[in-house]
C-alpha cells in the first residue's frame, strides 16, 4: 500500500510509526481498526514487546537479592529502567524514582505516607474539579482518617482551571495542592509551573497527576519544580501494572514507608525493623520487573520519536477532529480550553454516548464513552457522560476521517 504523500511530513512519518504497533493492523467487525482510546490505555510498540520478551526469556530472577548471575542481570535491567525514567522526567537522582503499579498507587502512596503524617483536623487538601477519581478518592480517604478537609477549585466554561481560582483557595490550613497536569476527560492542560510557584510562595507542596501529560508533552520535574509527580506506564506505550512516583528527595526521606515487607528493610527482628534507603523504602515486595523493563523501553521509544514531534503531530489531528466533529449537526464539543492535549470529548443531541460508542465500534472505531472516571467534570457540565476520542503517536488523518464519518452515521441512525 502506498502512503498518501499529503499525510507525510518531513519531521514525522506516522506510517512508519504505525508499523511498530502490530495490534493496529487488524480488522474489527470487518473494518480496519481505528484506535482512538489511547487516553484510557495506549498500545505498545514492538520495541516494548521485544524488551519484555528478551527480559523474560533470558534474564528473569528476583531483583536485589541473589548473588547468582540472573539476579544480577535482572537487577541491572530494573535499575537501568529507573535511570531511563529519571532522565525522561529530568529528576535529580534515581533515589527520587519509586516504581509503583500506576498513577493510582502513586497517589495513594503519598496520601497514606505523607498525608497521614502531616494532616491534622482542620487542615486542607486542595484539588480541582477536573481531577480523575484517582486524584480525588485517596484524598477523601485520608481526610476521613485525619479530620482534614478536601477543597476543589472550580472550572471555567471551556474546561480550564484558572490560577486565580486555585490561589483564592490556598489558605493558612492548605497542606498540599494536588492537580492534574492534563485532564483525562477534556484534555485541558493546567498551568502547573505557575501553580507550583504560587503554592511554594505560601509554603505548600504540590503533587501533579501526570498520567495524561507524559504521553503528550515534555515533562521536566525540575522545571515544573513540583514535589511529587505520578504517572502510569500503560498510557505512554508501556505495560500495564507499572508506574512511577517521583518525589523530591528531602520529602521522600522524611516520609515513613507505606507498605511493609521484603525489599524495603535493612534488618528485621521480631521487635522492630530498620528501613531501607530510597527508593527501596517504598518498594515493598517483589516489584513488576518486566513491567519496569518495558516502561524503560517505552520511554526510549518516545524519546526516539521526539516528544515535541509527537505533540505537534497529535495537535494537527486534534484540530482536524475538532473541526470535523463540530461540523456534524447536533454535535457539541465539551472542553475547548486553548492549548489542550489530544483528547476530544463530545456529545450529540438526542443520542446517549453509549449508543455513539456502540455504533462507532460496529464501524471498527474504538472510543471511550462514559464519565471517564471524572464524575465531578460531568456534574459541572450537567452531563451523565460524553464520548471521547483520544490520539496517540500512531493516530493518523485517516483515523480522524473514519471517526467523523462514523459519527455522521450515528446522526443518520437516530435521525
Amino acid at each position, binding site marked *: 500500500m502506498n502512503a498518501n504523500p499529503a499525510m507525510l511530513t518531513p519531521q514525522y512519518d506516522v506510517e512508519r510509526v504505525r508499523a511498530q504497533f502490530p495490534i493496529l493492523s487488524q480488522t474489527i*467487525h470487518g473494518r480496519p481498526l481505528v484506535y482512538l482510546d489511547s487516553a484510557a490505555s495506549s498500545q505498545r510498540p514492538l520495541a516494548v514487546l521485544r524488551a519484555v520478551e528478551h527480559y523474560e526469556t533470558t534474564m528473569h530472577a528476583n531483583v536485589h537479592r541473589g548473588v547468582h548471575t540472573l539476579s544480577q542481570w535482572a537487577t541491572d535491567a530494573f535499575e537501568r529502567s529507573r535511570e531511563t525514567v529519571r532522565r525522561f522526567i529530568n529528576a535529580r537522582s534515581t533515589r527520587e524514582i519509586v516504581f509503583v503499579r500506576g498513577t493510582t498507587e502513586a497517589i495513594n502512596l503519598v496520601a497514606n505516607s505523607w498525608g497521614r503524617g502531616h494532616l491534622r483536623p482542620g487542615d486542607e487538601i486542595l484539588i480541582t474539579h477536573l481531577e480523575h477519581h484517582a486524584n480525588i478518592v485517596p484524598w477523601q480517604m485520608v481526610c476521613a482518617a485525619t479530620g482534614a478537609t478536601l477543597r476543589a477549585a472550580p472550572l471555567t466554561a471551556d474546561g480550564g482551571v484558572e490560577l486565580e481560582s486555585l490561589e483564592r483557595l490556598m489558605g493558612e490550613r492548605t497542606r498540599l495542592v494536588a492537580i492534574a497536569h492534563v485532564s483525562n476527560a477534556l484534555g485541558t492542560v493546567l498551568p502547573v509551573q505557575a501553580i507550583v510557584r504560587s503554592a511554594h510562595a505560601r509554603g505548600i507542596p504540590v503533587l501533579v497527576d501526570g498520567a495524561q501529560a507524559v504521553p503528550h508533552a515534555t515533562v521536566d520535574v525540575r522545571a515544573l519544580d513540583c514535589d511529587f509527580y505520578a504517572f502510569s506506564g500503560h498510557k505512554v506505550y508501556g505495560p500495564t501494572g507499572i508506574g512511577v512516583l517521583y518525589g523530591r528527595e528531602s520529602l521522600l526521606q522524611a516520609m515513613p514507608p507505606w507498605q511493609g515487607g521484603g525489599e524495603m528493610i535493612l534488618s528485621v527482628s521480631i521487635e522492630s525493623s530498620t528501613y531501607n534507603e530510597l527508593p527501596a523504602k517504598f518498594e515493598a515486595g517483589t516489584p513488576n520487573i518486566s513491567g519496569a523493563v518495558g516502561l524503560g523501553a517505552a520511554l526510549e521509544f518516545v524519546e526516539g520519536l521526539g516528544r515535541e514531534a509527537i505533540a505537534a503531530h497529535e495537535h494537527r489531528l486534534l484540530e482536524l477532529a475538532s473541526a470535523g466533529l463540530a461540523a456534524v449537526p447536533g454535535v457539541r464539543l465539551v472542553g475547548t480550553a486553548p492549548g489542550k492535549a489530544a483528547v476530544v470529548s463530545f456529545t450529540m443531541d*438526542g*443520542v*446517549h*454516548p*453509549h*449508543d455513539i460508542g*456502540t*455504533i462507532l465500534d*460496529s464501524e471498527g472505531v474504538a472510543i471511550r*464513552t*462514559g*464519565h471517564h472516571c471524572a*464524575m465531578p467534570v*460531568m456534574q459541572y457540565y450537567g452531563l*451523565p*457522560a460524553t464520548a471521547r476520542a483520544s490520539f496517540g503517536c500512531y493516530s493518523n488523518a485517516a483515523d480522524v476521517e473514519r471517526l467523523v464519518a462514523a459519527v455522521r452515521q450515528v446522526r443518520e*441512525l*437516530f435521525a
Partner: protein
Amino acid sequence: MDLKELYRDVILDHNRSPRNFGRLEPADAAATGRNPLCGDTLDVTVRFDGDRIADLKFEGQGCAISMASASLMSEAVKGRPRAEIERLFEQIHGVITGREPADAQALGKLAALGGVSEFPARVKCASLCWHTLQAAMADRHTPVSTE
C-alpha cells in the same frame, strides 16, 4: 454485527418517546438503579393493586437501550401479578444474554430486545430497569447496581 438488529424501530421509537416516563406520587414502592459504568440512574415508582402492579412510572437518564427497555417494561408489566413479572424477567434475561431465542408470541414487543444479545457490553443497559423493578417490588431501599 448488524446495528439494525440492536436499534430496531421499536427501540428507537421508545427511546424517542418513552411511555410511562415520570414519577408516581404517592407510590407504594420505589427504587433507584445505577449503572456505575456509565453513570446512568433510573428511578422506578410503583402502585400495587393487591398482588398486581396497577401502575408504574420510571424516570432517569440513559442510552437508547436502557430507555427503550424501561419503556417497554413499563407497558408490559402493568396489570400483571408479581410472580408473572418475575417469570417475564427470567425470560427477558435469557433473551438479552442470548441463552434463549426471542419468542415474539410470548414476549410481544419486548422481543425487540433480542438484538442486545449480539452486544454483550449492552446487556446491563437492557437489564437495569428490571433489576430496579425487582428492588421496588421487594421494597429494598438501597440503590441497586448492575455491577
